[in-house]
């Protein structure tokens, strides 16, 4: 039996599911069947049942069949990993019995098949901190999480560290906010810890992952929700809060279900709730479900939404760290930031500090999608180059197409051209290139993508998602969209382009929140690296990618004056 969200998001199964097969002694081989959203929609729940039945039927008593979280290589789902053999089985569709048979005979030790994980660049370049347990633990079994060292960080913090020592450890790790802005996490914790709070404090986990093309937070919540809860509880102890909220998008029903189940199990076993780990610390977590507003990822809008109102942002200061939920000091961090915390405490801040670059420490999870061969979920150390990510981990472009750009940071980010592919990925280099780290969406584009149309796509997104509170964003995004539409339909002149640039600068400088301030970024970055494409649309009525409906002949709205002097501009190269 299944139901789907009203928005048609992926179905969530209810009711009793068959138990995993776990041998009494050590398993000779285990089939870890991916149960994250991508593989589930390709039938991996049915695959689990088929495999379980096949292993039982063959009497393989020392073989385990388990459900696990995201295995990463979403392009090749449904996925099954056999960790003892270091093999990954791809495209094990339940409708193709041959694939399942190959897998079962491999589990029985009769044949060796599947993709070797150790030698594969998709896996060998990755360093897993946040995704450490994704694909190895059952997201709905607390015992799996505890067996792999889960909740050790929390009990270490509670029993042997003061709140100030916990904060000092986070500061030492160099961890920065993974939601996009990159503010040092330890400093934010210290601010909240120092704030006066006669009526208590709150910890909020921002899981309103709204960027199109990003599914990192979803995968973490669907694959290992306990790790996020542990991070929140440690944060609660450090800043002196006893209540936490996780604000999740309504589009992620499976994440909501697994998170709610994780909270119940953690409360049952005393990892959340009153007197955690036998101490006097208590911490409760509630889930709040969003209702489809991108702006609610902005922290003041998120607070308004948790309080049951329209999600419109407020001017800052006051920052939520001093006046947030119901006017109380509130610590807001992203899912991935909290997922880093248990390791920072159990292994020490110095450990995380050894990974990454000078100013960006640790790892970053990316959702690698678009025109790339290996689409999926990856975690890389900060400082890896974009070329390594796209061409080694991603396996290059699909269908042998030509690389054009990689887009990071969603609607507030930018497009990075081929000439900058050797740039090391960290907060500062991406900002210098006119993009942002963002939450981690990374979309690869080939020569069939028109960059003006990409800018228009993101502007369409922003004008629809603008909450309407401040004028620059409400009107500015609409007007920028119209100007971009003129370019793509061959109705623009060079003066329209100048108008677009002026307007973009004004919207960036004067909008109230990050949505408006970031909305012009796709325009700026495409103009910076692909101005030639804009000019080709305007002057020559050519869309090189063949996407835009530019009519041949001079534009209807163009004047002779505007068209003058365009003959010398080449349509292909940069100005």
């Amino acid at each position, binding site marked *: 039996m299944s139901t789907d969200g009203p928005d048609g998001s992926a179905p969530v199964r209810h009711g009793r599911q068959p138990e995993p097969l776990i041998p009494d002694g050590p398993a000779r081989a285990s089939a870890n069947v991916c149960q994250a959203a991508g593989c589930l929609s390709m039938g991996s729940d049915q695959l689990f049942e088929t495999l379980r039945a096949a292993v039982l039927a063959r009497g393989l008593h020392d073989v385990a069949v388990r459900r696990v979280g995201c295995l990463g290589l979403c392009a090749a789902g449904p996925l099954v990993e056999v960790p003892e053999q270091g093999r990954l089985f791809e495209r094990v569709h339940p409708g193709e019995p041959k694939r399942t048979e190959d897998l079962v005979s491999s589990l029985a030790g009769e044949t060796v098949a599947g993709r070797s994980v150790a030698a594969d660049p998709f896996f060998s370049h990755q360093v897993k901190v946040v995704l450490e347990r994704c694909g190895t633990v059952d997201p709905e079994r607390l015992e799996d999480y505890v067996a792999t060292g889960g909740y050790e960080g929390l009990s270490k913090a509670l029993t042997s560290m003061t709140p100030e020592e916990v904060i000092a450890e986070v500061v030492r790790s160099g961890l920065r906010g993974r939601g996009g802005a990159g503010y040092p996490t330890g400093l934010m914790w210290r601010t909240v810890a120092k704030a006066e709070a006669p009526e208590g404090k709150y910890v909020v986990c921002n899981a309103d992952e709204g960027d199109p093309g990003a599914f990192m937070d979803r995968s973490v919540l669907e694959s290992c929700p306990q790790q996020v809860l542990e991070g929140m509880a440690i944060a609660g102890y450090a800043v002196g809060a006893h209540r936490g909220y996780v604000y999740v998008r309504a589009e992620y029903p499976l994440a909501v279900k697994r998170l709610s189940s994780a909270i119940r199990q953690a409360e049952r076993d005393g990892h959340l709730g009153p007197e955690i780990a036998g101490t006097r610390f208590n911490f409760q977590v509630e889930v709040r479900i969003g209702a*489809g507003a991108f702006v609610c990822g902005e922290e003041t809008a998120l607070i308004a939404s948790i309080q049951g109102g329209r999600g419109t942002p407020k001017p800052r200061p006051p920052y939520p760290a001093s006046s947030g939920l119901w006017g109380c000091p509130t610590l807001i961090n992203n899912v991935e930031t909290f997922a880093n915390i248990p390791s920072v405490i159990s292994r020490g801040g110095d450990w995380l500090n050894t990974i990454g670059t000078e100013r960006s420490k640790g790892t970053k999870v990316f959702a690698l999608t678009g025109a790339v061969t290996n689409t999926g979920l990856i975690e890389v150390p900060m400082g890896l180059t974009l070329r390594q990510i796209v061409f080694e981990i991603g396996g290059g472009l699909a269908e042998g197409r030509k690389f054009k750009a990689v887009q990071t940071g969603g609607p507030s980010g930018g497009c990075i051209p081929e000439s900058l592919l050797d740039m090391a990925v960290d907060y500062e280099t991406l900002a210098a290139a006119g993009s942002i780290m963002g939450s981690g969406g990374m979309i690869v584009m080939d020569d069939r993508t028109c960059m003006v149309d990409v800018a228009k796509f993101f502007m369409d997104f922003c004008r629809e998602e603008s909450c309407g509170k401040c004028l620059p964003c409400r009107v500015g995004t609409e007007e920028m969209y119209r100007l971009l539409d003129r370019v793509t339909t061959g109705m623009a002149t060079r003066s329209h382009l100048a108008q677009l640039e002026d307007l973009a600068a004004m919207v960036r400088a004067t909008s109230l929140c990050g949505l408006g301030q970031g909305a012009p970024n796709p325009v700026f970055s495409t103009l910076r690296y692909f101005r030639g494409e804009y000019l080709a649309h305007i002057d020559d009525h050519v869309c090189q990618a063949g996407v835009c409906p530019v009519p041949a002949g001079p534009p209807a709205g163009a004047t002779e004056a505007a068209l003058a002097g365009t003959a010398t501009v080449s349509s292909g190269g940069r100005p």
Partner: protein
Amino acid sequence: MATSTFVGRSAPSDDKRWRQVDVRMRRLGYRPDGLIEVLHTTQEVFGYLDDDALSYVGESLGVPPSKVYGVATFYSHFTLKPQGLHTCVVCTGTACYINGASALLAAISKELGVQPGATTPDGRVSVLKARCLGACSMAPAVVIDGEVHGHAVPARLVDVLEKL
């Protein structure tokens, strides 16, 4: 806030589904800040939010009608109109967009005569757009009645929709 004044107002009709809404409100202690949670439950139960539902929830939680209506119309997840028998959600996230989501929408608009957000005149199919379903590895993705279809092709999609 006079939260308790309106508690006990009887449901708009004797439809048993109101009990689920009542249970949700009771669990949230009739707190005004539970408004979004209660609207979620109401829409799950009835499929959409009509005027009766909005005023009942508002009065029960002590939230003025202007604010209830403001919240219900601010969030795109809430719908004030009944949906068709079937739903078809076309994902328009970035990965789907560069892999041809707009061609899918164009085909639906041409063959079924319906724009995103609307329902066919016979009330059979509602067409919706989604921001991103996270099924980026199967772009372009379409969800028909809760089932995800990856690598969608315009002609085949129209065919599937016409045969629903």
